[in-house]
């Protein structure tokens, strides 16, 4: 029975009110901060202070089982949580801890969960991403970082790149080739690697939106055998494809908080249009600006509905006709990822020539639209839009590979 209502029970309404109350107290006015587009130390400290308060509420682990520091909440409660965070311009959870937690909850051992989930839940341990390599981006399965068994240790050698904010992390989730004789997808394992282990070094890469990513080098890095997550050599199917909403996991589909970022930009441009005039004409009466803003509004509406569809598929434990996660999930990612740079470009056009000013008295919206424009070229993270199109075409529509 079709229903687009999110909080249709008193319990869910109360939950939304509780989240809202917390945000109004702890984050009045919001915080325009994205961990992948920020290097300023003081702002990072404020950001982590906020997220530790979220951790104290238990909400990082809202959907995790209670035996592992979680609250056992439903996917819909998680949706409400993330929606409220978005509406209050709260920043998203740092880096990839939630993905590591999801992997551990699905495939980790009891000991691994006990050891690592607490730090993720309390935001005392940050996790960096160790997937991408210089020669393995979209074609991640061609990665060459390798690990071999030496007694009761795995020995890792290789190089990872574009590790967002990894220099601030204590641990890294690393994909490495453990079976050199297997085919590309079937010889990869996932490791929990402490970044203070001997043999690890890092050099910074600075992205065009004020964030730091990193090259990480592994030179005979030894980690105990219990640092391997899941079945040896099976990380591709177990971990990687558990990550992006392509598999249904207990925490719900796709990290929607990340997607809600676009609403923050929409709210900025709405404010700009409402408050500004050009040539004596309020922008709200400029026919071109009205069209542009309506297009932006519509695109965000589409994304909201795509997320609702993903939750519906998850919650009802069945797929809509013509809406498998591979089909509708990749429609969502291709649409969203292609949208972001166009979205911010349209915002720049609406703001006009002063849009390029980053700060000071003549900047609009403190230069946030300009920053969102720069950040929009980070849309490749987690797979390029082109990769999502290819996956949609081959696995979603059944076109030849």
């Amino acid at each position, binding site marked *: 029975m079709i229903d687009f*209502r999110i909080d249709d029970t008193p319990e869910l309404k109360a939950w939304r009110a509780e989240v809202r109350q917390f945000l109004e107290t702890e984050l009045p006015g919001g915080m325009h901060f994205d961990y992948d587009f920020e290097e300023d130390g003081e702002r990072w400290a404020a950001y982590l202070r906020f997220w530790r308060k979220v951790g104290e509420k238990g909400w990082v682990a809202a959907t995790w089982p209670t035996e592992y520091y979680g609250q056992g909440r439903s996917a819909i409660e998680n949706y409400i949580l993330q929606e409220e965070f978005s509406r209050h311009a709260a920043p998203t959870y740092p880096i990839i801890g939630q993905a590591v937690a999801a992997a551990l909850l699905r495939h980790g051992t009891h000991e691994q969960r006990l050891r690592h989930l607490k730090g993720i839940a309390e935001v005392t341990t940050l996790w960096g991403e160790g997937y991408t390599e210089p020669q393995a981006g979209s074609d991640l399965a061609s990665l060459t970082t390798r690990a071999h068994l030496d007694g009761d240790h795995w020995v890792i050698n290789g190089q990872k790149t574009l590790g967002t904010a990894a220099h601030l992390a204590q641990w890294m989730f690393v994909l490495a080739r453990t079976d050199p004789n297997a085919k590309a997808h079937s010889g990869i394992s996932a490791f929990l690697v402490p970044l203070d282990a001997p043999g690890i070094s890092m050099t910074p890469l600075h992205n065009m939106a004020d964030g730091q990513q990193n090259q990480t080098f592994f030179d005979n890095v030894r980690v105990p055998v219990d640092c391997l997550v899941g079945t040896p050599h099976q990380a591709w199917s177990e971990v990687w494809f558990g990550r992006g909403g392509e598999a249904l996991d207990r925490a719900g589909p796709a990290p929607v908080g990340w997607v809600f970022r676009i609403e923050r930009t929409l709210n900025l441009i709405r404010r700009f249009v409402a408050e500004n005039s050009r040539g004596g004409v309020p922008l709200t009466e400029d026919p071109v600006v009205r069209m542009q803003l309506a297009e932006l509004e519509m695109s965000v509406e589409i994304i909201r509905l795509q997320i609702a569809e993903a939750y519906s598929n998850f919650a009802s434990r069945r797929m809509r006709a013509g809406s498998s996660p591979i089909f509708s999930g990749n429609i969502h990612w291709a649409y969203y990822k292609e949208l972001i740079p166009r979205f911010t470009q349209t915002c720049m056009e609406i703001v006009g020539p002063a849009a390029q000013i980053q700060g000071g008295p003549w900047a609009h919206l403190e230069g946030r639209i300009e920053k969102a424009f720069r950040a929009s070229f980070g849309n490749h993270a987690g797979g390029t839009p082109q990769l999502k199109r290819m996956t949609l075409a081959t696995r979603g529509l059944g076109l030849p590979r």
Partner: protein
Amino acid sequence: MAINLNFSEDQEQLRRTARQLFDKHVTPDVVRKFQDSPEEFPKAVWRQMAELGWLAMPFTEAHGGLELGFLDMYPLYLELGRSLAPVPHLESVVLAGGLISALGSEAQKDALIPAIAEGRAIVTPAIIEPDGTYGADGVRLAARQSGSGYALTGVKILVAYAGAADQLLVAARTSGAGESGVSLFLVDPKAAGVSLDRTPNASGLPLYALTLQDAPGELLGPAGEAWPTLNAVMLKGAVLQAAMVAGAGERILEMSVDYANTRVQFGVQIGKHQAVQYLCTDIAIHGHNTGLLALNAAWRIDAGEPFARQAAFAKAAASKAIATMTWAAHEVHAGVGFMLDFDLQLYTLRGKHWEFNLGDHRYSLEQAAAEA
């Protein structure tokens, strides 16, 4: 339960029944046959739709209706779009029926709603004028008081199925400008001063130019106050028009994927080329997003929530989607798709009617902007 985009079992069943009926009786060759046909539309199919209760869906029980909502009609409209069935459901049941239900006197409702619901009468709206202005400003056809009634003078275009209509529902101006002063009139197509001329058009649907010269009109609802209701009913119709586009999109996608998987050039299936994959995924993305927007708007209508903004989004997306999907499908099919004996062109040409019907992309976006 919160957030559920799955049809109910009844809605699924309706979709299956509609698929079967149209697969059997509205094949592409039937669609071709009715292009520019003096028969107007397939009456036998219309009778079956009436027997299945599909013409009675939105009406009250008191008028022989089933009191079903827009979500219940949504699956039917997916199939109307997929099959290209040339039947006046949107015009007679949803638009005219919706307006008569909302504004008509008891006598008017008693006279027309049961007849529409049983398929005994076709009533079709006449809204757009030759300059193509959407919205209240576009309603300029003059109605002046004449004795106890009104006399209407002016021209309407794109009046669908008017050759088979028992009554025309004409938007006219009784006073003022803009939203104030718009009135609706029932006009008997056989009355003096009424002339209908079938207009050659892209899709071959029976679309007429209606010329009125002091033609008698019977007022529907209070004079000068019809616009808000007319606008709301057209927006509701736009949601179903968007559902038709989504349903057609599924078929356009199937055709394109099938062709890309079987056509071999340079020794490989053309669907192996990313350029072709991009075209196919364009079709999937546009069709799917249109369906989501329309479904959400239909739900809002039934739930009693404000729906104008969402309905306008749905139609804006649908207008863009049908143009983009058919374009992309032509790129995939190349020469074959250009031939009349291939079915794609039926969607491309019908698509032009759907694109402009009840608001184009630009007007619909402006409607959404006005609702922000």
